[in-house]
């Protein structure tokens, strides 16, 4: 802009004309901005506010009691355990899938990329159902599991499996386009200079993809902690044992303990806000480095 002003002898009319051509009239700007902000306020800000207003509607002491209650604590522990297994599993998978897809050529590659996205197209409820069909009492491995006294459905392993399914694509779909864009030149140089495969991965590839990886982990984590439909099908809803945080919210709500439900829900809402902040920070970081 500055250089154009300096070189062009008579810059003002052209720039004003071009601005007029690509700019909406003031009334339209105001109208559209108002419409957008009112719509977002109604659909996004009000629901977020109501969570906290309801959580604290009976005071801070009630809130603390609801959050510290043994069943609530058990649900928090189960949610954290689920995330601690599902997210790392999907990170390892995401990195392996992205490495295979972006660094090599093989037939069926685009089919594989589509299949990785498949869990996003499946309803959460159906994601739970398919595990019941495999591991449930009526399922493929049901009789064998019962014989060996192993419980997967209506127990913690089922919750972890269903969560893994639902969060399956997050890391891979973040890394694949990123590593595709970065190409293989740096890895080739590292190998040519005598680095081993793992050295190349840890010292060259990983530093290059760290922000994209972190981004995928943040999204994966948020979905894993908040998953409701899939987990609801496989959980069995045993208080203190197979209830994750969202399931605990549901139970309290259905028992008309509305304030208690919102107290636990507000913890999940805080997680959502933290996710949005971290996500924006990483996006800002990514823009800065590229």
């Amino acid at each position, binding site marked *: 802009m500055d250089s154009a002003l300096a070189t062009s002898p008579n810059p003002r009319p052209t720039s004003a004309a071009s601005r007029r051509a690509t700019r909406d009239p003031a009334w339209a700007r105001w109208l559209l901005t108002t419409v957008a902000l009112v719509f977002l306020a109604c659909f996004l800000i009000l629901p977020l506010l109501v969570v906290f207003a309801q959580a604290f509607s009976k005071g801070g002491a009630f809130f603390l009691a609801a959050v510290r209650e043994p069943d609530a604590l058990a649900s928090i522990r189960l949610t954290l355990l689920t995330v601690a297994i599902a997210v790392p599993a999907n990170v390892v998978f995401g990195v392996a899938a992205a490495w295979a897809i972006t660094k090599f050529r093989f037939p069926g590659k685009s089919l594989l990329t589509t299949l990785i996205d*498949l869990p996003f197209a499946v309803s*959460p409820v159906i994601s739970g159902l398919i595990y019941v069909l495999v591991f449930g009492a009526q399922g493929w491995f049901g009789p064998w599991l019962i014989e060996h006294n192993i419980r997967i459905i209506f127990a913690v392993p089922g919750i972890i499996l269903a969560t893994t399914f639902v969060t399956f694509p997050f890391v891979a779909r973040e890394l694949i386009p990123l590593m595709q864009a970065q190409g293989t030149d740096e890895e080739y140089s590292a190998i040519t200079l005598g680095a081993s495969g793992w050295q190349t991965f840890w010292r060259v590839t990983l530093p290059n993809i760290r922000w994209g990886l972190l981004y995928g982990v943040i999204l994966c984590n948020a979905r894993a902690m*908040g998953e409701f439909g899939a987990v609801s099908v496989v959980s069995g809803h045993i208080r203190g044992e197979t209830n994750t945080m969202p399931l605990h919210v549901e139970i309290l709500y259905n028992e008309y303990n509305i304030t208690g439900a919102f107290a636990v829900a507000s913890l999940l809402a805080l997680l959502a806000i933290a996710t949005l902040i971290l996500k924006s920070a990483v996006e800002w970081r990514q823009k800065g480095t590229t």
Partner: protein
Amino acid sequence: MASPRNSRSILPGFGLSLGFTLAYLGLIVLVPLSAAFLRTAGMSWHDFVGAVAAPRVVAAYRLTFGASLAAGLVNMVFGLVVAWVLVRYSFPGKKIVDALVDLPFALPTAVAGIALTSLYAPSGWVGRWLAPLGIQVAFTWTGVFIALTFIGLPFVVRTLQPVLQELEPEIEEASSTLGANRLQTVIRIILPELAPSLLTGFALAFARALGEYGSVVFISGNMPMKTEIVPLLIITKLEQYDYQGATAIAVVMLVSSFFLLLLINLLQKWSRRYQAI
């Protein structure tokens, strides 16, 4: 794909990474998904039709597809406005608003569900203003529609934003120079260019709404034949130990979702080609 490469790469780890990817994909996704199809394949045609075409199931399809369609269309309009405002205009707090658009992705669906129910219940912040007008939202069709609109909003905005950013101002300038007024430019030049991504965003929001469960079950009231969505019906059948019935309905929904996924992939290819010209 972009750069030509030898099929024999000097990079190591092909066998390990592809082997692990295929094994994990197979175990976590493909084998369980195939269980649904194989279980249904064991049903007689008569039983299958009886399970997926019962009046209560058809009512649930009508509600789920109808409300998802309506929510997708509303999101198409308001999503376009939001994306346009976020890309073209500047106002204080824009970055926060931009980040907030992703809230439906980040907020657990059960939390969204109870929050929307509490807002739109007759005694809620919004519901108490609508009740005197005779409008009931919670526990009706409108409640399902509101929840599905909430859940679908980011898809349209996030699909449109990058395309709007890439839009070349020269085209608009040319249109203006050739005598078109601003409204003509928007309708004749900008909207056609946005059409593929607008449709993609709509299809993504629609696909998500079809399977949505958590944010809907609290606000919908769950009355059979009236406000019972398909995912809830599947859960109800499971709770009654009707595994065949639940799986048959699930297969119908899976086939619809996969068909939509295919459509979305084609749409995305189309919009990429459109942009390349």
